[in-house]
């Protein structure tokens, strides 16, 4: 069961017998996909992995006629492990592309390592502002978003509603602060309070008591993963659900909805994608995912599926000549593939220019007792560009 002992042996043979690979038309396309597969966050990694596998199935296991091999790596939610796995992908497996990465801090450790080694990196979740701005690279693409864009959309929405006295809650760490900054970039109304909670905090009753004392008009939160599940349950139990409308980003998704259920009903999120987005690629992806795995995919999965499709478009454009990196970059810049979000284009920093929608958690097809589903209400941004691309010096 050990990871490819045969390959190690054959690689050694190759190296010693100096059999050079043919100048073009590689025999396999190797992709190293790094995500978090162990620990509580492994649930996200699993969704991404399943989506990658589904993408390969849809591609018939081939990109541009060449068999594809994806090697999965577990970063354990630690930047240094992520970097080690990336090194392993590059130097041991000698992959042609590195893809995946959930967390901004892991991405900031991994992406420069990969691009500096001359390999292409296709991010499928984390979009830290550094990579969108001064650290942008021609070898780095992402199929997701820049972190700030989603809260910007929510800020814009509340601005459009003309709300005042909004209460903001986020964990006390870099992403939490970025989210609130992004929100405030578009929301110009009065802010009732800005509260930072402990990272990984479980109980929010103290914050909810403070919140009620302030009597705001609306609440905006960023509480990803388990924090969000806990917050939503407690928000609903405290009887605040009907009282103060709750808006969030990265807090409610298809992974957390089964655990939160009715406590999420009526919740608003902004996002660039939703399972009910109406286009052929998305219908095929969501439908087949549901058929294969028995539940709805999340945006993490959609981005990862897109990541594979983006790579496929590039490999096909250079007719399998993986040495032609310039050609592949040029192809990717066109975003010429059937994305689950529909047609989009790339900005100079290789981040998507795309729509952002307002979503609402509504009762599932099985009625009130069923797991709620996210439903698109309207587009808040059309062809939105992120706020950092001007800092990116890349020209094309």
């Amino acid at each position, binding site marked *: 069961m050990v990871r490819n002992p045969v390959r190690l042996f054959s690689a050694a043979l190759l190296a010693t017998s100096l059999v050079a690979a043919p100048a073009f038309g590689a025999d396999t396309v190797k992709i190293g996909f790094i995500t978090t597969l162990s*620990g*509580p966050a*492994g*649930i996200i990694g*699993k969704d991404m992995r399943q989506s990658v596998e589904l993408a390969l199935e849809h591609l018939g296991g081939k990109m541009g006629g060449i068999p594809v091999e994806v090697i999965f790596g577990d970063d354990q939610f630690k930047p240094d492990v992520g970097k080690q796995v990336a090194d392993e992908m590059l130097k041991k497996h000698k992959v042609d592309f590195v893809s995946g990465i959930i967390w901004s801090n892991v991405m900031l450790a991994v992406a420069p390592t990969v691009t500096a080694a001359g390999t292409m990196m296709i991010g499928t979740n984390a979009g830290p502002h550094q990579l969108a701005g001064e650290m942008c690279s021609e070898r780095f693409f992402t199929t997701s978003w820049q972190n700030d864009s989603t809260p910007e959309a929510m800020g814009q929405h509340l601005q459009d509603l003309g709300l005042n006295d909004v209460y903001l809650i986020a964990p*006390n760490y870099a992403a939490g602060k970025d989210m609130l900054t992004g929100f405030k970039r578009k929301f110009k109304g009065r802010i009732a309070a*800005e509260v*930072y*909670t*402990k*990272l*990984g905090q*479980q*109980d929010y*009753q*103290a*914050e909810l*008591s*403070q919140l009620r*004392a302030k009597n705001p008009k609306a609440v905006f939160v960023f509480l990803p993963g*388990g924090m969000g*599940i*806990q917050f939503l*349950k*407690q928000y609903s*139990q*405290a*009887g605040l659900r009907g009282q103060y409308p709750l808006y969030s980003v990265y807090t409610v998704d298809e*992974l*957390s909805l*089964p*655990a*939160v*259920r*009715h*406590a999420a009903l009526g919740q608003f999120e902004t996002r660039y994608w939703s399972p009910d987005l109406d286009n052929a690629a998305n219908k095929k992806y969501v439908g087949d995912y549901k058929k294969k795995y028995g539940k709805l995919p999340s945006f993490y999965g959609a981005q990862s599926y897109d990541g594979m499709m983006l790579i496929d478009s590039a490999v096909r454009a250079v007719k399998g000549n993986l040495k032609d990196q310039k050609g592949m970059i040029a192809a990717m810049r066109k975003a010429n593939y059937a994305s689950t979000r529909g047609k989009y284009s790339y900005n100079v920093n290789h981040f998507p220019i795309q729509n952002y929608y307002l979503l609402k958690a509504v009762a599932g097809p099985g009625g009130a007792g069923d797991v709620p589903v996210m439903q698109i209400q309207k587009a808040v941004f059309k062809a939105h560009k992120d706020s950092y691309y001007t800092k990116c010096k890349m020209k094309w």
Partner: protein
Amino acid sequence: MNAILFVEQTLNGLQFGVTLFLMAAGLTLVFGIMNMVNLAHGAMYMVGAYLAVAATQWTGSYLAGVLLALVGTLLVGVVTEVVALRTLYERDHLDQVLATFGLILFFNELVAIIWGRAALFSDLPQALSGHIELVTNLRYPVYRLMIIIVGLLVALLLWYVVTRTRLGMLIRAGASNRTMVSALGINIRLLYTIVFGFGAALAGLAGVMAGPIYAVQPGMGELILIQVFVVIVIGGIGSIRGALAGAIIVGMVDTMGRAFLKPALGALISPTAAEAAGPALASMLIYLLMAVVLALRPEGLFPARGH
């Protein structure tokens, strides 16, 4: 400062405190009596929460689910003690730390294998999902009030068992003088198993009650475990009284810190500086408290005598 808000935050602190106490009681006894560092105590909390969800679904009754979960956690605790931990009592703390950390990984993965990595849905029974108006303008969730009451009842029950029963006499004797208990011809292995099992069941109870408000997911035990260690160390290891005092203090300090530290700091230093320092300091507060307590009283507030 608003008086109602202050009362409400006090209740919140109390509620967090009693949850910590349920965890701390078992841990401090296992420490005090068997001289055992059990990092896997958090795993029992997680097992309790998972079993409650599973048993509630299976029986369709919340109460039956809770009872089954408690019995189940007790059994898991007893089996763990007999199979793995029993042989570790005579080892030093290091071996215990290593082995019980191994158990954490084991239980977390086991739960992930059985129930998956996704957080489970766990809801309140209808009867407990409302609020009551304690005094004018102070509405408090019924479920949280129930946690406070259950926690205080358990504390009372423990006080009775420890001070008024033969088992309690043995437990107290065991915490202060291990050799004496064995000299009395007591079946010490059985005593240990009983203490460990009930400690696990108490942690399970904490987990059962936490299920509907927190996320039921693998690794949920470790989030609370470190705070429980802080509690028993502040209280003094091996002392139930210390565990209760430590739990209430930590619960209050943490809650009040989160609620009032930033405004309080804002009055002292500039609001922008408070904005930055407040949340950071609130996260560190209980550790700061522990360092101060241990610097002044190296054996905690209520040391069990005779170590």
